[in-house]
């Protein structure tokens, strides 16, 4: 077991290395450097040149790369030009928001998907099953930004059920009960959007697992012992079918990260995705490189997590 995890971890290192190299190269191709923003008509060009020399921007690229990756490994991504702040602290603040949003999304996702998947599997081929299949088809086909906009338009503006932007109401002080409730309230609509978009895989997997399980011997044994069908579903089938669902958690995290760019921008939620788009617009390169690196790392971590859960659930997958 540990061998598998360590091995998977070692595979990650070259992937991260290549990703960091690509990101570093892209950062070098981006126009301007940290001092371009300081240039005014009165600035002495030799002064800028001195600064560049002092910060090592005239060194060969591999030396710059080694210095950059060394600093990044210690959590130092430099300064943001637009926010005039430490990039690590800035991203950390946003990452907390994204983390809570993702957590609420995952809870809502499983709260929707598990009952629907179980019902569809249990009443296979009924009108209910067909309705659930239709729902999962639509949620699969619809692009993220379209669903987010439609939800914002209907639930946020037309019906006025949810706040339309921000992460908390300004009238509350941090630490109070109202503050926490307001935070959750602001998260609900984006989280529901996320959850609806991600339900397809879980529903379809759970449904086919349950349909499969119905014909298994252990179910027939349970039935012949006289256990009511209701109990067979809740005690025997459900438990067996649920385990693989846990394995999707890693992929779900990866998916959430990808969707965060759209969802956070549309709902005006101050998370990492929104920070990425605003940094791109303001050409804040140190933030961009740090964010792409972080997202890449998290995505790799997500797939690693999936593999680990999968190998716990299903011993056949373990690499020898």
């Amino acid at each position: 077991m540990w061998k598998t995890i360590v091995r998977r971890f070692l595979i990650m290192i070259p992937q991260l290395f290549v990703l960091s190299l690509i990101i570093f190269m892209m950062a070098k191709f981006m126009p301007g450097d940290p001092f371009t923003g300081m240039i005014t008509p009165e600035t002495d060009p030799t002064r800028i040149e001195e600064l560049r020399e002092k910060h090592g921007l005239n060194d060969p690229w591999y030396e710059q790369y080694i210095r950059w990756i060394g600093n990044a490994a210690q959590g130092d991504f430099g300064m943001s030009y637009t926010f005039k702040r430490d990039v690590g602290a800035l991203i950390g603040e946003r990452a907390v928001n994204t983390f809570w949003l993702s957590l609420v999304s995952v809870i809502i996702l499983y709260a929707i998907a598990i009952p629907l998947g179980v019902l569809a599997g249990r009443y296979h081929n009924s009108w209910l099953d067909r309705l659930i299949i239709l729902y999962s088809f639509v949620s699969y086909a619809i692009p993220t930004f379209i669903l987010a906009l439609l939800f914002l338009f209907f639930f946020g503006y037309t019906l006025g059920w949810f706040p339309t932007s921000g992460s908390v109401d300004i009238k509350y002080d941090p630490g109070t009960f109202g503050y926490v409730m307001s935070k959750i309230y602001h998260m609900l609509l984006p989280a529901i959007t996320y959850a609806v978009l991600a339900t397809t895989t879980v529903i379809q997997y759970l449904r086919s697992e349950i349909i499969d399980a119905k014909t298994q011997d252990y179910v027939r044994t349970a039935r012949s012992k006289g256990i009511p069908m209701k109990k067979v579903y809740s005690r025997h089938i459900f438990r067996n079918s649920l385990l693989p669902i846990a394995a999707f958690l890693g992929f779900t995290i990866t998916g959430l990260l990808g969707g965060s760019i759209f969802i956070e921008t549309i709902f005006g939620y101050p998370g990492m995705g929104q920070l990425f788009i605003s940094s791109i617009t303001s050409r804040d390169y140190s933030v961009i490189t740090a964010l792409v690196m972080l997202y890449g790392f998290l995505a790799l971590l997500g797939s690693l997590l999936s593999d680990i859960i999968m190998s716990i659930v299903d011993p056949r997958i373990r690499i020898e």
Partner: protein
Amino acid sequence: MSIELTENKELTVSPPPTGWQVIWREFKKDKVAMVSLVGLIVVIFGVFIWALFIDQDALMKISLRDKYAAPGSENYSGLGSYILGADQGGRDILGQLIIGAKNSISIAIAITFITGIFGIVVGMVCGYFGGWIDSMFMRIIDFFITIPSMMLIIVFVTIVPKYDVPVFIMIMSIFLWTGTARLVRSKALSESRRDYVNASKTLGTNDFIIIFKEIMPNLSSILIVEMTLNFAGNVGIETGLSYLGFGLPPSTPSLGTLVSYANNPLVLYEYWWCWLPAAIFILLMMLAINYIGQALRRAADAKQRLG
């Protein structure tokens, strides 16, 4: 021996329904898929023909008196009316919708073809030959699948100095060929161990003839499904990027550009006709293409067929 084999092959191909007949039967059986198919074809042709009659310069001319004209209202100059209303600059939404749809569809088709061809060639070569080529490409594909491709596309789009439509298609294609390659590889791998391939090899047939003339026809149904679903995916990604402002250049409006009017909360709520038609257009198109893709998938797999 060899003669027998070729005869057998012909025999198994001719009597049962051909691929197209199977697909046709599947669509006849599934009314929704049929409606989607006919609707999609009509809409795509309609959009392309209609776009020929639209003068893009006249369309993009600003007429402030018609600012946010409501759907169905008269044009200020008295020439016709705005069926779907007008935007902030008094430009006709319907005309922009047609031009945007034309651009979005053609770009999605271009990306689908480029990634399709590249993915098929890489997948076929990897699956058939195996060895170091295979392991090298599989590492590359694994890498592409795990990286945050959406972000990298956005970064690429912003750093390219001379940015236009072909460059955009290129950038998208770099990141989107891997799915097809992986699928084709796994299918080609199992196919290349079949007897007919071994027989052909012993006959001394050239590897590339085996790959493209003998294995590929057997994968054609899967490839059609894959390309259809890729097309839907590409429409989604392109319009999404254009929505965020990192897709098509401003000179080439896309459906996503039209939806991005909704970035202004006032437009989102008060002047919904500016963005909602494009959003619904994208939604319906995605549903239709995906539905067609599902029907094709059923046709490709004998166990799932309805017909």
